[in-house]
């Protein structure tokens, strides 16, 4: 009984902190759910849930599955085929994700040793056998389907091709006949006979017009043939997709197997150690130059082993790695930008002369697009790190505990600086405004308390302008995120931007679907970043604070 009561009390307490958390994060659509769970005015809550949760869900559902899948996909065609349906987009997402899992598995396999390796090897071999069988079946299906589709296409093309050939022949014949006619006329003309000359001219004109007409007709028919040839049979596409899937699985399993066997780290090291052991035995029986050579060999191989022991699996970069690196890059740029923007903004707000001094720079640099900044900054950064591999700063970054994995290179730094340069303006403007619009009374308090400059800054000016500064930071982060994608695309700094560009470059049949997946990933991360900033903004806000811009 007592526990029940205490639970109720705790639940009651939680309710308000829950609601407060919802309010701060701005996820207001969750509030009616919480209230409903506590049985508060069910009818009102149901209405709100309908309004804020069910209606948007229905809208998304209709937009995606009815309007998009139903109409847009069918009506809009690109040169590389139809637009991807939502299920295609989802399966693309799965395949991108699969690639990520595969890379992790490969890395694990490379480092696996002992009993575990042997066990895993057995499992893989079984899997390979079954995958080979599936692939064989799929390939067979493709072959059969190809024959069927080819026959179909041939059947479709044949009558048109016949028509085309016929047309070509008849046109040729007609044209030859006209040529003969014109030739005859031309030969029969006596010089000075204007009427006959005019007649000839008319004939030639008619011939030319007819030629153009015929050509158009022919092209039209040809176009029809091309259309049939370009059309991809959906059944064949499906079979081919299956075949691709199985062959990719098989390729992965095979690589996985080699990583567990011939390319396995522990195995290679063991083998080399064995080799050294035999060398050492041989060394004992040698003398002179041979002995020296052998000794050198041993030392050489020892060094190879020590390097191998430190070596890591070099996999390819997958989407989640790229996402993490992009987020890291945007925050690097964002902090860099804020680090500049906030102090400058404060001085602008405090001192009108300084503001006047900064205005031309702000006015000129603010509208410059990231596309312009990036190449310039790339050149500057490359100049600053002529030999990035050996540069102490880069080495320092490479050895950082959590960030080392992300291989911070000049392209990363250039992207981050571009983000900073494009995003700092909102923060700067908001900070200046926030500082300049401090309540006069609050400044009077500072005067009465005789606060020094620094105390005034930390106790009055900054706290008072924080809501506006954070409003600016929020805009900056949003801008930065958008800029980053473009910057990565140009600098080929590993990240989502590069993923999109690579996919665009691939131009394969599922590239479009993968790019759409990225749209959602970018959108969702952008949303999360924005929410984080909203929370901060609300936490520093106070009653009567200047409104968000």
């Amino acid at each position, binding site marked *: 009984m007592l526990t029940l009561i205490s639970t109720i009390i705790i639940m009651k307490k939680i309710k308000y902190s829950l609601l407060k958390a919802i309010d701060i994060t701005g996820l207001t659509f969750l509030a009616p759910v919480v209230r409903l769970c506590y049985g508060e005015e069910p009818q009102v809550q149901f209405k709100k849930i309908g309004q804020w949760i069910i209606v948007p869900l229905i809208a998304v559902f209709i937009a995606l599955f009815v309007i998009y899948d139903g109409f847009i996909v069918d009506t809009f065609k690109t040169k590389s085929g139809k637009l991807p349906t939502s299920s295609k987009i989802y399966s693309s997402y799965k395949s991108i994700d699969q690639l990520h899992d595969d890379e992790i598995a490969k890395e694990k396999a490379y480092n696996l040793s002992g009993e575990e390796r042997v066990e895993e090897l057995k499992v893989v071999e079984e899997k390979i056998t079954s995958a080979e069988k599936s692939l064989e079946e799929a390939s067979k299906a493709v072959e059969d389907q190809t024959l069927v589709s080819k026959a179909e296409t041939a059947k479709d093309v044949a009558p048109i091709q016949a028509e085309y050939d016929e047309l070509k022949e008849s046109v040729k014949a007609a044209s030859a006949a006209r040529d003969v006619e014109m030739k005859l006329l031309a030969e029969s003309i006596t010089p000075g006979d204007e009427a006959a000359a005019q007649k000839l001219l008319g004939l030639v004109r008619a011939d030319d017009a007819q030629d153009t007409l015929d050509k158009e007709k022919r092209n039209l028919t040809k176009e029809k043939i091309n259309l049939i040839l370009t059309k991809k049979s959906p059944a064949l596409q499906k079979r081919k997709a299956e075949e691709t899937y199985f062959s990719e699985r098989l390729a992965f399993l095979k*690589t996985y197997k080699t990583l567990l066997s011939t390319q396995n780290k522990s195995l290679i090291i063991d083998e080399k150690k064995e080799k050294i052991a035999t060398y050492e035995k041989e060394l004992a029986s040698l003398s002179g130059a041979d002995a020296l050579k052998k000794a050198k060999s041993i030392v050489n191989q020892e060094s190879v082993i020590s390097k191998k022991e430190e070596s890591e699996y070099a996999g390819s970069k997958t989407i989640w790695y790229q996402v993490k690196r992009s987020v890291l890059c945007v925050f690097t740029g964002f902090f860099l930008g804020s680090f500049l923007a906030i102090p400058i903004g404060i001085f602008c707000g405090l001192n009108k002369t300084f503001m006047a001094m900064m205005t031309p720079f702000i006015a000129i640099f603010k509208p410059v697009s990231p596309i312009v900044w990036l190449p310039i900054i790339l050149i500057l950064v490359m100049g600053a790190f002529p*030999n990035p591999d050996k540069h102490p700063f880069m080495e320092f970054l490479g050895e950082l505990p959590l960030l080392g994995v992300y291989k911070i290179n000049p392209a990363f730094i250039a992207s981050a600086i571009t983000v900073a340069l494009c995003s700092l303006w909102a923060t700067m403007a908001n900070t200046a405004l926030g500082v300049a619009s401090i309540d006069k009374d609050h400044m009077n308090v500072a005067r009465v308390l005789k606060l020094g400059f620094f105390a005034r800054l930390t106790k009055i000016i900054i706290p008072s302008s924080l809501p506006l500064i954070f409003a600016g930071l929020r805009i900056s982060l949003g801008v930065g995120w958008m800029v980053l994608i473009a910057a990565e695309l140009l600098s080929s700094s590993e990240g989502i931007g590069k993923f999109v560009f690579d996919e665009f470059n691939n131009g394969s049949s599922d590239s479009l679907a993968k790019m759409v997946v990225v749209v959602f990933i970018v959108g969702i991360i952008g949303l999360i970043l924005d929410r984080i900033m909203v929370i901060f903004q609300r936490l520093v806000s106070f009653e009567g604070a200047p409104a968000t811009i």
Partner: protein
Amino acid sequence: MKNKKFTTLIMSAAVGAMSTGLVHADQLDVEKDSLKFGFIKLTDCAPLVIAKEKGFFQAEGLQVEVVAQPNWKTLLDNVISGDLDGAHMLSGQPIAATIGFGTKAHIVTSYTMDLNGNAITVSNDIWSKMQENDPKLDSPTPPHPITADSLVPVVEEILERGEKLQLGMVFPTSTHNYELRYWLASAGINPGMYTKSDTGGRTRAQVELSVTPPPMMPATLESGNIQGYCVGEPWNQQAVAKGIGVPVTTNYDIWKNNPEKVFGVSKKWADENPKTNIAVTKALIMAGKWLDETDADGKLVNREEAARILAKSNYVGADYDVIKNSMTGFFMFQKTDKREMPDFNVFFKHHCTYPWYSDGVWFLTQMRRWGQISDAKNKDWYIKTAKEVYKPEVYIAAAKLLLEEGKITEADVPWETDGFKPVTKDFIDGLEYNGKEPVKYLNSHKIGNKDPE
């Protein structure tokens, strides 16, 4: 692996006399074992990708990351800056960088990645006009080679309108630029000269050549900004697959077995990592050999697997079907015109991976021909410059080790060559090329700069 050990030992004893430096078949103690190589999404990056995916790099004790680059300029910049250890490069790139046309940096190469592999594609519209001009072309399978003769009236017609035919190529110092220019010039079309002030190469041009990154070619053609382009695979097959253009000729017809891509590293990197350089070259030779492996009937056995690997989105990423065509020795000129072209991509045959000085000299002659090299040079300069870039000694060192390990045969490598290929007339215009007489060759062209011998 293990049972080969004895044969290896015997082999090493046998070749020991002729090999100079390293005699034992131990894995090289490389200076740097974690490497990052760049590539452009083209099928001829295959040796790099295969060396990684098939474990040839790992076999040399190297952990290699292979990263796609957006364009040739960025790729070169990344190699110069050291962000990349090496990269898949256009043959002209290391030479141009070394002589200082464009970005100046000393780049060296000790491995030629492939022969051939490019094609010139024109838009459907230009193709139908070419067909009008030459009725022979108006057939599902027109006779090859197709010269630019039927393009001449089209160029003239556009010039009369006060415009120029817009053609795309991938880089000012790329093979594509020189091949496209060669093809046009052989029909008397002036593709334009580079001068000191005109770095776009459009002086006296009858057509306008512009730079577009390879993967962007089909999209640029589709959008109508260019009417044709010269590029590597799969971007010509892509045009056919999408039905937006027609490949009219491959560079096999322009110059039979012409060098295409090289594996380039900066001189500095090569000097700092001599053993790593040899190890990388070893792995690449193995990859090239794997790619060109044939069965008893001469059928390429590994190309389908290679196409599957290249079709992965982190490599070339185009559809398998598109990549498969050219990689397995076929080329689709039109939907109706699929031809067998076993030598469309050569990765190992004809001793092609050896870094020939004569290849470097040819590119230098073309650079001089079109004015990228602004001053007249003598014969010795051409050969000296080629020797600064092409480093067969590294290749030979790597090949020797492989031979000792029994991984290649004696016939795979031109051990005794002086670095110049035999004199050839296999060009679309039938001119004779002798790498030892660059100035004479330069002067034999109708269009382009001529120098005193």
